[in-house]
C-alpha cells in the first residue's frame, strides 16, 4: 500500500493534524510507502545513509536550530542532501520559521515542504497512527460482523442463506451490530484484523421482504459499534444429508484473512435450528478457549482416562 502526499495532507487535516504546504505543490503525487517516519538530522552533517525517500521526513526544533547556528558556508553544505536524495516530503514541526536556504533548496528540487503547528513528539505519534491506518493492508469480504459478548464474530455464507436475518436476531438479543453485507477488514497491527462497514453502508441492513432498514435508528446507539476486532469466523452452510458435520468439536478449523488464521466454525443451516443461540454458544466457547478451557478436550480426556482404567482392570482380572 502507498499514498500520495496530497492524500496524506487531506487525511491529516480531516483528523485535526494541521499541515500547510510551503513549496513543492507540483510534487504532491510523491508517495509514502512506509508508516514509520524519519528524523534525518544527521543528513545535515553530510551523513545521508539510511534515508528512506518513501518515508515521511521530519525536522523539529533541534534540526532547525542546528541549521540556524551554522555559518553561511556550512549552511549551504548542510542542505545539499536535498540535491542528492529526492525525498517524498519534508515536514517542519512546531510552526517553526524555515531558514531561507532550506526553503529555496526544497523548492528548487521540487520537494514538498510542509509545516505543522504541532510539537514533534505529538505530531510523530499522530502521523504514525494515521499512516498505520492509511497504509494498512485491506480487503472487503461478503459477510457480516457482530459483537457477541465482546467477541467480534464474522458471519459468512452464500447469498440468501440468512446472514442478515441472523444479524437481526443477534441484535434483538442485545448484541452489537457492526456491518452487514460488506465488511471492510484492515490489518492494522501484526496479527490483528479490524472490521468495519463501508462508509455508505454504516448501520444499514437489507432484509428480504422488509427492504433496507437502519439499525441505529431502529434500536439506538447501544445496538451498534463502528469497528470491532475480528476473532471468530462462523460459516453458514446449507445442510446436506451426505456431508459429515463436526460432532465432537475436537478438530480445529481455520479461516485465513491476509495471512492471519482465525478459528472457524461451520454451522449447517436447517429450518428450526436456533442459529442465534448457536452463535452465542460458539462465542462463549471461544472465550473459554482463550482462557485455556476446552470443554470438548476435557470431556475426551476424562473419557480416555475411564477407558484406560477399565482396560487395566480387565488385564488384572
Amino acid at each position, binding site marked *: 500500500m502507498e499514498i500520495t502526499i496530497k492524500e496524506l495532507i487531506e487525511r491529516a487535516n480531516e483528523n485535526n493534524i494541521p499541515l500547510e504546504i510551503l513549496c513543492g505543490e507540483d510534487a504532491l503525487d510523491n508517495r509514502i510507502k512506509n508508516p514509520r517516519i524519519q528524523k534525518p538530522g544527521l543528513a545535515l552533517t553530510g551523513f545521508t545513509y539510511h534515508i528512506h525517500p518513501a518515508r515521511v521526513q521530519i525536522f523539529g526544533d533541534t534540526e532547525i536550530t542546528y541549521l540556524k547556528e551554522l555559518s553561511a558556508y556550512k549552511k549551504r553544505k548542510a542542505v545539499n542532501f536535498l540535491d542528492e536524495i529526492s525525498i517524498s516530503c519534508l515536514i517542519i514541526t512546531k510552526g517553526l520559521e524555515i531558514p531561507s536556504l532550506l526553503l529555496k533548496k526544497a523548492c528548487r528540487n521540487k520537494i514538498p515542504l510542509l509545516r505543522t503547528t504541532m510539537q514533534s513528539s505529538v505530531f510523530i505519534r499522530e502521523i504514525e497512527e494515521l499512516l498505520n491506518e492509511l497504509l494498512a493492508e485491506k480487503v472487503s469480504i461478503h459477510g457480516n460482523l457482530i459483537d457477541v459478548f465482546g467477541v467480534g464474530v464474522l458471519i459468512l455464507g452464500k447469498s440468501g442463506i440468512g446472514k442478515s436475518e441472523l444479524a437481526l436476531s443477534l441484535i434483538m438479543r442485545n448484541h452489537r451490530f457492526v456491518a452487514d453485507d460488506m465488511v471492510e477488514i484492515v490489518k492494522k497491527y501484526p496479527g490483528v484484523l479490524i472490521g468495519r462497514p463501508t462508509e455508505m453502508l454504516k448501520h444499514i441492513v*437489507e432484509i428480504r421482504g422488509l427492504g433496507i432498514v437502519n439499525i441505529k435508528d431502529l434500536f439506538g446507539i447501544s445496538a451498534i459499534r463502528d469497528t470491532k476486532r475480528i476473532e471468530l469466523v462462523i460459516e453458514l452452510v446449507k445442510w446436506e444429508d451426505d456431508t459429515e458435520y463436526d460432532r465432537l468439536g475436537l478438530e480445529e478449523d481455520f479461516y485465513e484473512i491476509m495471512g492471519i488464521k482465525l478459528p472457524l466454525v461451520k454451522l449447517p443451516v436447517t429450518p428450526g435450528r436456533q442459529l442465534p443461540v448457536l452463535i452465542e454458544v460458539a462465542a462463549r466457547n471461544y472465550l473459554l478457549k482463550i482462557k485455556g478451557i476446552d470443554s470438548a478436550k476435557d470431556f475426551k480426556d476424562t473419557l480416555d482416562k475411564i477407558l484406560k482404567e477399565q482396560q487395566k482392570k480387565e488385564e488384572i482380572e
Partner: protein
Amino acid sequence: MAGDPQKMKKVEKKITVQNKLGFHARAAANFVKTAEKFQSEVMVIKDDVEANGKSILGLLTLGAGKGSIIKIIIEGPDADRAIEALEKLVNNKFGEEE
C-alpha cells in the same frame, strides 16, 4: 453438486452502464433479482471495489453511475446463461426508459 469441476464454469465480461441514473437502488434490485435466478456465484467489480452480485447493498456501494465500466464475473454451472441475462439487463438500461 457444486464441487463437480466439469460443471463449474467461469465467465467474465466488461459492460458499460448506460442508463441515466446508473446503478441506483431499483436498478440494483433488478440486477439482484435476475442474478438470484441462477445458481452461479456473481461478482461485480468497479475499479478495485468488489461486490456480490446477489446483494443489493453491495452493488449500491459500487457507486456505478452512467458511463462507468463494470466487470461481471460469474462462476458456476449456469454461468453462461447468467452472464447472458445480466448483460441483457444492463444493456437494456435495467428496463428503464432512459
